[in-house]
């Protein structure tokens, strides 16, 4: 890891612009802008969906039309015009029967530029990649290896066709259509996403990952991810995101649902590096995500996220600890720079007995950004011996940014044990001085200290992601040192 910091950081620092900001010219099959029942029917028809799903979407649309956009979050932005977005965009050459060779070479080049060459991934890292570019899955790898174990890992549209009984049973069971404004919108218009099912007692042999990208100008991305881990199974799921530079704001409203049945464990890791807008705060992605998991008896769900991108982030990966002895974890690093705004955190709903939850949140604000932690720990009257530990640390760099903490703690059971602590501080002059004294220049010293500050969370990431995440932290904070 240190080898990387030495050599690559220097290169990174020279290219100060958002390095993943390029635009691939792929002919897209894009719907005209706007949203109404016809558009939803058209999306559904385009994807060849069964009747029940079309109805489900229409129902969600009806609910959404009656909802108002939430305003309670600690963020300011110009509300997106939902009628000025195209709700479907698929690369034209996409073919359900494609192999890796069939994939548009230009697209492959795009991934190479991002450093996620599929071939390389396939050979070297042993990660199965379900690549999503503009809402339609273009390549799925390692399916065979997974299929041998009985693991289903495919795009959600494929799952709708091939495993309708599973999709029908679980979709919307954790995040109902009525949940919130963006979840309802997503339910109405989601175009693709991933579906994963791990059968009973199976330990998924590799990390599953999806890469999301928003490519087409003016298209919103509405991903739907559904991960079902059957009894006593284990899966580690990785999600990483980059988006090209754009001037107009792009909307992203994803829904992720995790279901961990008795004794199952799901580890869900995210690295999010969407375009944060330029140094003047122009452009950038709006990221309004609903992520939630439900734990049955003895199950465990662990969310790990590294959030460095997006102009506005609104994201609360949550755990419903329904079963006895279930465990919820949330590890987060949120970095904001320039004019970025992040309002992120988690909800831990303790319903079962002996449930445990851990929240470690590290917020780093620089430039003129605002970074908020908002979390809820709720102990229901039946949740005997529930245990929670929360720690929210904020690091401020420069005096124009803000760090905010809004924890909600609700205990209704006398056996509950809850600890919450939060601190806010800046990098100490003495720490920098100590590094300088040992010949480490200030910029590098800061990278080092930030790394140490985030260590607890970085350690929770799978190896491949840890490297990428560390890189992202450094890029995001460069030039923020006063």
């Amino acid at each position, binding site marked *: 890891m240190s080898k990387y910091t030495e050599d690559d950081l220097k290169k990174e620092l020279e290219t100060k612009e958002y390095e993943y900001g390029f635009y691939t010219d792929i002919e897209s099959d894009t719907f005209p802008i706007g949203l109404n029942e016809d558009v939803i029917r058209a999306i559904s028809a385009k994807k060849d969906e069964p009747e029940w799903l079309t109805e489900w979407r229409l129902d969600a649309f009806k609910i959404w039309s009656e909802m108002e956009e939430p305003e309670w979050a600690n963020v300011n932005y110009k509300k997106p015009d939902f009628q000025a977005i195209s709700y479907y965009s698929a690369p034209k050459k996409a073919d359900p029967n494609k192999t890796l060779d069939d994939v548009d070479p230009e697209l492959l080049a795009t991934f190479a530029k991002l450093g996620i060459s599929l071939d390389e991934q396939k050979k070297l890292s042993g990660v199965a990649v379900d690549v999503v570019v503009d809402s339609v899955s273009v390549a799925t790898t390692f399916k065979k290896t997974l299929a041998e174990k009985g693991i289903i890992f495919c795009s959600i549209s494929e799952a709708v066709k091939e495993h309708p009984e599973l999709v029908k049973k679980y979709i919307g069971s954790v995040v109902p259509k009525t949940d919130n404004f963006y979840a309802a919108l997503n339910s109405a218009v989601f175009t693709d996403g991933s579906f994963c099912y791990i059968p009973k007692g199976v330990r998924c042999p590799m990390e599953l990952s999806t890469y999301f990208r928003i490519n087409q100008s003016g298209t919103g991305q509405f991903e739907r991810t559904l991960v079902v881990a059957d009894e006593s199974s284990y899966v580690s799921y990785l999600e990483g995101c980059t988006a090209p530079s754009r001037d107009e704001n792009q909307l992203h409203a994803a829904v992720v649902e995790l279901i961990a049945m008795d004794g199952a464990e799901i580890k869900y890791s995210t690295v999010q590096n969407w375009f944060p807008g330029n140094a003047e705060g122009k452009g950038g992605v709006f990221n309004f995500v609903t992520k939630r998991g439900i734990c049955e008896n003895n199950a465990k769900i662990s969310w790990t996220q590294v959030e460095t991108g997006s102009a506005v982030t609104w994201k609360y990966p949550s755990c419903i600890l329904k079963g006895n002895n279930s465990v919820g974890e949330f590890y987060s690093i949120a970095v904001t720079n320039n004019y970025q705004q992040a309002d992120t955190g988690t909800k831990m709903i303790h319903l079962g007995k002996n449930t445990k939850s851990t929240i470690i949140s590290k917020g780093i604000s620089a430039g003129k950004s605002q970074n908020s932690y908002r979390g809820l720990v709720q102990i229901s009257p039946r949740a005997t011996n529930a245990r929670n530990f929360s720690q929210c640390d904020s690091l401020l760099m420069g005096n124009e940014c803000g*760090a905010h903490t809004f924890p909600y703690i609700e*205990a209704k059971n006398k056996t509950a044990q809850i600890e919450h602590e939060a601190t*806010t501080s800046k990098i100490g002059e003495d720490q920098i001085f100590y590094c300088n004294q040992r010949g480490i220049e200030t910029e590098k010293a800061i990278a080092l200290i930030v790394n140490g500050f985030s260590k607890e969370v970085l350690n929770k990431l799978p190896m491949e992601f840890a490297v990428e995440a560390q890189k992202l932290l450094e890029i995001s904070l460069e030039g923020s040192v006063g």
Partner: protein
Amino acid sequence: MELKEKLVSSFLAFESTVDVKNPLHDIRTKAIKDFEAFGFPTKKVEAWKYTSLNSVLKNDFALFPKSEVAIEYKDVKKYFIHDLDTYKIVFIDGVYSSHLSSTTHDKFDVCLMSSALTQNRFKAVIDVYFNKIAKQDGLVALNTAYSKEGAYVYLPKNTAGDKPIEIVHFSTGSEDAMLLQPRNLIVVEDNSEVTVIERHQSLSENKTFTNSVTEIYAGRNAHVDYYKIQNDTNSASLIDNTFTDQYDHSVASVHTFAFGGEITRNNLNFTQKGQGIDSILNGVTILEGKTHVDHNTLVEHTEPNCESHQDYKGIFDEKSTGVFNGKIVVDQIAQKTNAFQSNNNVLLSDKATVNSKPQLEIFADDVKCSHGCTIGQLDESALFYLKTRGIPEKEGKALLMYAFANNVLDSVKIPQLKTRINALIAEKLGVSIGFDL
């Protein structure tokens, strides 16, 4: 009739009891309009998420007492710190009781708001300080509209109050349900010092709803020590809105001892308007029965080099509910701020609830800010240890709870008051041990 409409329409009747030509009356007429616009807060308001006033507001409150009730000192002696020499401002059903009170105009003023608002010699102070810092939400506006009576304390520069000031509000239950709206003003100018002890007490089981507003000014190097004893009957509800403005190097502390009341809500607001300021907010809450206490604090750091310390301890039994909603705001210019907030709770019953929302909003980078919140139980092994030493379970528990709250109790500077609070806690916990061991 809804309470809100009743309050708005009764304003005319209220106007006949005050001098409407006084320029101050414009403040009241504006406030009643504000109240009409805002109304009472509901649970939809984020700051009132965990506290609903519905059960209180449905009562048909009398706004003005019909008759004056006299109280003998010997009957209420126990509600005073009787072994301590104090100035006293006593109200019975919102009406000043001169024979229970002991006021002064010698060197400094300890007297009535009604005098201060109407007499010319107080005009200079009232014009500068009255209703200047109270943030006009619905409840404060309502109090302002009906502001007429309360305590007025004014210490000019370089004066130390020679003895503490006791402000006691009795409600006698002469009406089935009574709404009281005391309005207090405490002005402590540069280099002055004062100690105030405030208490609200119902003498019957009839409903009492008190909506109190207190404005406190602490000038440069001023010291203000304010103790609130809230040990009212379970038929009494209290909304205490306190606003404190502090200037350079002043120290202001508010200690709240909440031991009862149907619904008690403390809105405690501190604004630091200078450097080197220290703000101290302490609280001990011990509840049982169907009671509800909500501490809502706000400390605004607007200048560099200041400190604030918040320490709230809560013990909740039976069906009681405790809410802590603390907020620290550090402005961009307020570098070198040290702000600490701690909220510890013990839950003793499955029906008891604790909701805690400690918030930090920080816009400056060179600061040390932290908050901590815990919810837990008494340590079984500590309890066992005490039992092995022959201390019965009940007393052992009481000792542990006392130790839990001790940090805050230690900050009480008046020994007699501390003894009284200790006695209240012993009574509350149903033990007869002295805690001054």
